[in-house]
């Protein structure tokens, strides 16, 4: 819906906090990288499928961790829903999840 998208963009641009913006920039980066790799694999052919898998999975998971988890938890507008979890705790969780993710990915790759 046009209205929905317009509202979304207005809300987004109204964000002032550095934290959230920086995080959004990071999310954009992850998204772009993943999309580029996907496009490359499609273009060159299916030969490199096992090589393509780690980037996609990492990208997807990172996106998930950052966007969904961290962002939601950090956004003060959502504070009411996450009573017991401080932003610091959210960040610590994010780091932990990332560590495990990287471990698994390196294991798969190597």
């Amino acid at each position, binding site marked *: 819906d046009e209205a929905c998208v317009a509202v979304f963009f207005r809300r987004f641009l109204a964000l002032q906090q550095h934290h959230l913006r920086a995080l959004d*920039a990071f999310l954009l980066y992850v998204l772009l990288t993943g999309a580029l790799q996907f496009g490359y694999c499609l273009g060159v*052919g299916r030969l490199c499928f096992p090589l393509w898998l780690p980037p996609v999975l990492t990208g997807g998971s990172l996106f998930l961790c950052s966007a969904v988890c961290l962002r939601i938890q950090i956004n003060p507008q959502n504070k009411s829903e996450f009573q017991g979890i401080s932003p610091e705790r959210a960040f610590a969780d994010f780091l932990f999840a990332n560590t495990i993710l990287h*471990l698994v990915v390196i294991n798969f790759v190597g």
Partner: protein
Amino acid sequence: AGPRLRLQAAFSFLLLLAGAQALVPSHRLAARDLARLRAVLERPFTDVRAAYFSIVGLSSLGVRVVTISNETRELLLAAISEDSSVTQIFHAVGALSGFGLPLASQEALSALTARLSKEESVLATIQTLETASYLSQQADLSSIVEEIEDLVARLDDLGGVYLQFEEGIETTALFVAAAYKLSDHVGTEPAIKEDQVIQLMNAIFSKKNFETLSEAFSVARAAGSLSQNRFHLPIIVVPDGPAAVSHHQPVLRLQVTNVMSQILTQVSVKLDQAKSVSSKATVLQQLPFTLSGDFFELNFMNVKPASGYYDFSISVDGDKRFIANKVELKVKVSTEVGITNVDLSTVDKDQSIAPKTTRVAYPAKAKGSFTADSHQNFALSFQLIDVNSGAELTPHQTFVRLHNQKTGQEVVFVAEPDSKNVYKFELDTSERKTEFDSASGTYTLYLIIGDATLENPILWNVADVVITFPEEDAPSTVQSKNLFVPKPEIQHLFREPEKRPPTVVSNTFTALVLSPLLLLLVLWIKIGANISNFSFAPSTIVFHMGHAAMLGLMYVYWTQLNMFQTLKYLAILGGITFLAGNRMLAQKAVKR
């Protein structure tokens, strides 16, 4: 014992069903096997256990043995108590009896039963059986006799042919020896069925090479007990040479032996039935064999049987203890073949000229040669008869072989009999040119007759045949198909490496993928993300160092380490980072 009896009944019923075709012993101790067994047992012994095996084993086979001091006797007597294992009690009782020394049977029996309830193994039970056989008959040995039935139930049936314990053949052989020893001692028939005895026999005597002294000992004991006990005596009927008779050798000779190949002559051997395999007609019934020396003889040719195979059902009687005394034997009757009415002819294809027939008599060769070409076919007909009885024969092999004298080529055809049992063969050059590769020339014709029941196979050079094939098919040379020349070499094709995109493309792509990173940095600067809040508190530094170290560890993991080592280092680094991070974030929270 109610349910057990019912189980026995069901079991024996099943056995009856399964064993409708009676079991035949397939293994025994032939003289050679016996000699090998004795050689193993007669080796000089180095300790008491070896001495026991040698002495008792050899005496089972009927060979001789020694005396003993007082201390040893006391030691042996002391061993018979509840504190020793079944094996020790067994060896002690066995040794004392072997040397003829007295022992207290009731004490031994109670010690045995007490130990047996504690040790449930098959070997312990077998040893109990044998120990009981040394004890006085006054003692109540029935509980131990019942163990035989239990042990039989524990045997494994292998393919319906073998019956043995999963512990192996040695244990099975020891069981047979012990069971019969005890049964003889007590006077009750052991609870082992006839078929089971045969299966046990097959299993035990299938072992022809003995690696250890105890194996040799066990087989010797089993052989001894199966050839000499009060209840079951398996017997074997052995034909003298191949079971075949003919006019030159009309008498079928059989020998009756026990499992140790000891010849039995106090028996009566009778032919129940002799049936022809091909016609299923009964040729002979209820005829006794006559004893001559060590052999039982029967002149089968008296009934003038036709050549072929016959199933003989033979029964051996003379002792109620005999097992496997009904035997099936396949006897071959051979004869000699004669070729008669051999006619060679050239038949004109147009049927305009009458066929010229020449008669040849075996083993002469036909004079002159015959021709087969596009106008004429060559034909051969003959009859095969049994020289002794005059009956017509149809042997398995009736071949006509044509051998090219110049090129060495040979072609073989089969001559088929017609309804009147006259064999015919016809050579049509146009039909058969592929077999000959269209090579014209003079061929020698041979007739080959053979069969398992023929004593005189025939290879007869009958005639020469000049075969001419139509000109246009003549090959330039006859290539002998030599199968044994080196074949062309096969080049191994290594697996093609996977096609990879050209370097330019992948380099471009690598740069492309890294570009969002630049974008990220630009955005961050634009947004104004800063590190101005960076405090140099120790926990912060430790945290960042720890985190960096963890990322570094990931790289090292990729290049060198395995999962276990990585997890170890990760645990250490992670712990440090966690603690530091905790402190740092707490401080941040406080500041906020």
